């Protein structure tokens, strides 16, 4: 745990870590990356505005586009400062997922060490293509921990060229990846913030009633 991690010491609210693992490879250039940026910003704004969720949700962002970066390192949502992502390079999705799993594990250990109780973390994996690195081990690991209910995984395929066969290897069999219609990032993140607000007022460890997906009909989770 970081020495300056006062939030875990001062704030006893049960936490829910939310990790966004986002494809920012070359093919996302143009409208897709702009819409993604708009969606993520809106998500942060909406959750920050909620009294309970802003103190319960922690956000991390890992991007993969040429290299794997961690522009937001798992911090309380009220501390997040989001910068716009730019697109470029290949699709090292395997490495990104490995890093995301590690970050979530580390954060869970921080919670335990501080005595802060926590919800099952969420991981949203968004891609418009297919990995260009060796991803098999990372995919199998994520699928495994998702099926053991250690993490709630949402695989989201963007556009017409996403390889759903590969993406489904990252996802638990009971929640296969979904296709995002058009560039409805904003609708997706509106749904995500609504669902996360429910987490922060529900009971950790129980099933959460996810909000209805009406409005972006192709994703029925």
């Amino acid at each position, binding site marked *: 745990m970081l020495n300056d991690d006062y939030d875990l010491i001062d704030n*006893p609210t049960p936490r829910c870590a939310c990790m966004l693992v986002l494809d920012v490879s070359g093919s996302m250039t143009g409208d897709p990356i702009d819409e993604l940026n708009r969606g993520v910003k809106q998500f942060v704004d909406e959750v920050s505005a909620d009294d309970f969720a802003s*103190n319960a949700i922690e956000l991390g962002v890992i991007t993969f586009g040429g290299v794997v970066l961690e522009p937001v390192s798992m911090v309380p949502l009220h501390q997040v400062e989001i910068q716009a992502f730019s697109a470029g390079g290949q699709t090292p999705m395997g490495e990104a997922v490995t890093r995301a799993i590690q970050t979530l594990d580390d954060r869970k250990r921080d919670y335990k060490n501080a005595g802060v*109780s926590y919800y099952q973390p969420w991981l949203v994996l968004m891609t418009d293509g297919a990995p260009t690195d060796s991803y098999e081990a990372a995919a199998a690991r994520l699928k495994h921990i998702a099926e053991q209910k250690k993490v709630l995984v949402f695989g989201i395929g963007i556009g017409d060229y996403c390889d759903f066969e590969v993406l489904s290897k990252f996802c638990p069999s009971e929640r296969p990846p979904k296709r995002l219609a058009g560039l409805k990032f904003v609708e997706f993140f509106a749904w995500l913030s609504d669902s996360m607000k429910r987490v922060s007022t529900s009971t950790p460890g129980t099933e959460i009633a996810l909000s209805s997906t009406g409005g972006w009909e192709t994703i029925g989770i």
Partner: protein
Amino acid sequence: MSQPISVYDTHGKPRKLGHELGRGGQGVVFSLEASNDFVVKLFSARTLRERRYLKDKIDVQISMETLQRARHLAWPQIPIFDDNGQWRGYAMKMIRGATLSRLAHPKLYEKYFPGFNRIDIVTILLDLLLAIDTLHRNKVYVGDLNLDNVICDPTSRSVYMIDTDSYQIEANGRVFQCPVGRPEMTPVEHHGKDLQDVRRTAESDLFSLAVLMFQCLMIGRHPFDNIGGGSPIENLRNAFFPYGKGSPRPGSPGAIPLGSWYTIWSHLTYRVKQLFIQVFRDGVRDPSKRPSIRDWGDALNKYQHAMEVGFNESRIRPAKPKNVSDLRWM
């Protein structure tokens, strides 16, 4: 079933609905036009279909005059019908204030309860004890007691209990169960059971009440949070209370969470700490060991007096542990 524009009382006298005040799983609460004192709760079509006993239950509640008049309760007052004469819900008093989930919260209490100290918190808890005592004397058990269904008016420091239609009611040999609950507030004897069939008791309420009071006095901390713990439910099933004599060394597994929690705890009176230890150790498995409302009332009155005369710290976040002898004992 569409949302009506007007609703009717038993005599068919109409009133116009105002705006929506709140929405839950079971229904929607509306204001009434030209009324600041009453609101209407309309159940959803689905709730009416799935809980066919609801009308009978609400009718019984409406017949309980003592509770209808109780100052603390948003109790059903009259039945409400739509323009087809279908029963849709009930009218109750309008309640103003903030939920206790905003008081038992390290970031929100200063916003919603400005200027509050521990004397104010204890004032609220004593008022809550009165409310629950009134219910228990009428064989009504809250069941789903939690920080979100108790409201406090920050000015008057009065407590109001909402969601009263979920309470367990006994009348004329019939029991209407409380079908809802939150695991982290529910005593272990009711875990893993369908709450529709669970018979709540004074003792089960006393457990939930103790968790809620601990959360209010400890700025939102759950009594079973501990180092190395997991989700609140896992913690509750393990039921390990890390405060008091014989607890694990600070920082080691099972100890009090990191932060000023020990300091806050140390400023409670000996008797209040003793009651928490009793309910969260022996009282977890043995409901008869849970302190009564009278026990709590006595301990909290004395705690309040001790703060008023300056024996005990009244700041919500005291800066230092009380004293060294406390460190040894509690």
